């Protein structure tokens, strides 16, 4: 008998799996062709059947839960998120972030350059700050000489204030042109580096770490200011793509012990499971004491990966974020309160 997905009687038979196995497979393959009314009906019937299934609910045997979890973890380990997310090197993450800001800056109208934003700056002042940072970054990369006040080098903002003041009367077009010139030179240089170069030691302000880590820190910084400008000019927020979010979350979560220490709430000997949902997120069992190995989590903290990055950049307050917590709620609150280690 030829079964037709367009016929309600046949669709009902399919909904309850009342077909032979080969017929069910053939029906599955033809489902894309059914009309929207049929789709709605099928979904409604499946809800009914889900309810019918509840009628026969029965406690599973003891031990099945553990066996199931063991079998599941043999297929996919804890922390491995689903979905294909491009694995990009740090220099590519930086390039994409610079490119996104570049597109935004050329789109700004003359009045928008004067819009007020963070630190008492206008948008032009903020971009001038970025010019000063790129001047310093290029110097650290060995691209050009630059005289640096050693007393201010560890102060990211303080180091640029004099430059921003000195450039305050220059037209926005000149600020933009300088930013484009610097970032073009830097991204060209970085494009020639391989992943091994990214692992080399690098000094940037108070950070003595790898070039890759500095680059992802700068992705946080540039993206955060991109959103500052969008906010100042009435534009919608713009999250990084999943590949960059994955790189960002990979350095943000291990920074939690630093955040706790900076917030005056160190938590040696304790562990948190951090679950960042959405594309680019993942799951981490993070030891909260420096250099410690993660144990059984005392708290599980679940939040959206983009929200977490905005929290880390201090552009969102914990109170503004939907978070779910299992376990030690006080510890979870301390983690969130100390998350802002990438403020720009």
């Amino acid at each position: 008998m030829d079964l037709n997905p367009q016929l309600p009687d046949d669709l009902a038979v399919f909904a309850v799996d009342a077909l032979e196995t080969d017929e069910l497979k053939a029906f599955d393959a033809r489902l894309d062709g059914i009309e929207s009314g049929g789709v709605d009906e099928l979904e409604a019937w499946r809800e009914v059947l889900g309810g019918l299934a509840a009628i026969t609910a029965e406690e599973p045997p003891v031990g099945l839960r553990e066996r199931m979890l063991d079998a599941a973890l043999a297929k996919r380990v804890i922390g491995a998120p689903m979905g294909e997310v491009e694995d990009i090197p740090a220099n590519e993450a930086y390039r994409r972030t610079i490119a996104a800001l570049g597109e935004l800056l050329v789109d700004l109208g003359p009045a928008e350059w004067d819009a007020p934003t963070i630190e008492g700056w206008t948008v032009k002042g903020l971009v001038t700050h970025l010019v000063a940072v790129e001047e310093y970054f290029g110097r650290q990369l060995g691209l050009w000489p630059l005289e640096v006040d050693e007393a201010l080098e560890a102060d990211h903002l303080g180091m640029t204030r004099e430059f921003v003041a000195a450039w305050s009367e220059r037209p926005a077009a000149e600020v933009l042109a300088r930013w484009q010139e610097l970032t073009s030179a830097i991204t060209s240089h970085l494009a020639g580096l391989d992943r091994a170069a990214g692992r080399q030691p690098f000094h940037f302000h108070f950070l003595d770490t790898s070039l890759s880590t500095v680059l992802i820190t700068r992705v946080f910084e540039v993206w955060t200011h991109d959103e500052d400008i969008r906010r100042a000019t009435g534009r919608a927020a713009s999250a990084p793509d999943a590949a960059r979010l994955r790189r960002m979350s990979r350095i943000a979560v291990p920074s939690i012990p630093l955040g706790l220490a900076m917030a005056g709430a160190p938590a040696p000997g304790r562990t948190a499971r951090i679950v960042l949902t959405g594309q680019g997120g993942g799951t981490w069992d993070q030891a909260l004491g420096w250099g410690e190995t993660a144990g059984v989590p005392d708290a599980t903290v679940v939040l959206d990966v983009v929200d977490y990055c905005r929290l880390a950049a201090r552009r969102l307050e914990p109170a503004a974020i939907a978070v779910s917590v299992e376990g030690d709620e006080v510890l979870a609150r301390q983690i969130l309160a100390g998350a802002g280690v990438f403020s720009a």
Partner: protein
Amino acid sequence: MTTTVVAMSTPATGQPDADSTLVARIVAGDDRALGLVYDRYGSLVYGLARRVTSSTAAAEEITQEVFVQFWEHADRFDATKGSLRAFLGAITHRRSVDWVRSEARRREREARTSQDAATGTVATVVDITTELGAQDTAARVRAAVETLPLEQREAVVLAYFGGLTFREVAARLGLPEGTAKSRLRLALGKLSAVLSAQGVTSWT
């Protein structure tokens, strides 16, 4: 395990995670969320599999397969298309009927069906309507099932809980195949209407 869902400035509400949150956690690689989904729906999956297969061993195997598959492919769940209960129920039912329709089991089932037919019982129907649980959802569904005319109730129970094909349902009830199909559709339509009228569009 209870979960607190909070904006962190507000008092804890102590509400469990929504299914959608648990699914997002599983997609992010959180095995604890898989355990919570099992705690929430394991009895539904196991009970349905055991009812359809009449086998404890098969029900354990199917239950494990359903949740392991969900761990691997939770991103296939689309909350806009229905509840997690319906999603897991559909996967469980399909696996269960696949199990009973394998050739070796088919022979066993046919022998059992012939025996039932000879004694004139429709045991499955009677069992289902008397063993309904005390949970709210089950109670609502039981009430809805009881509104069905007997001939529709027999058809849907034999097909869904008995794992019979519509042809087997027709043979069992002495009906033309087309009539068996129509009774299934009418039963689903009426159940859907009754439950919607109660304001129940999904059970989460």
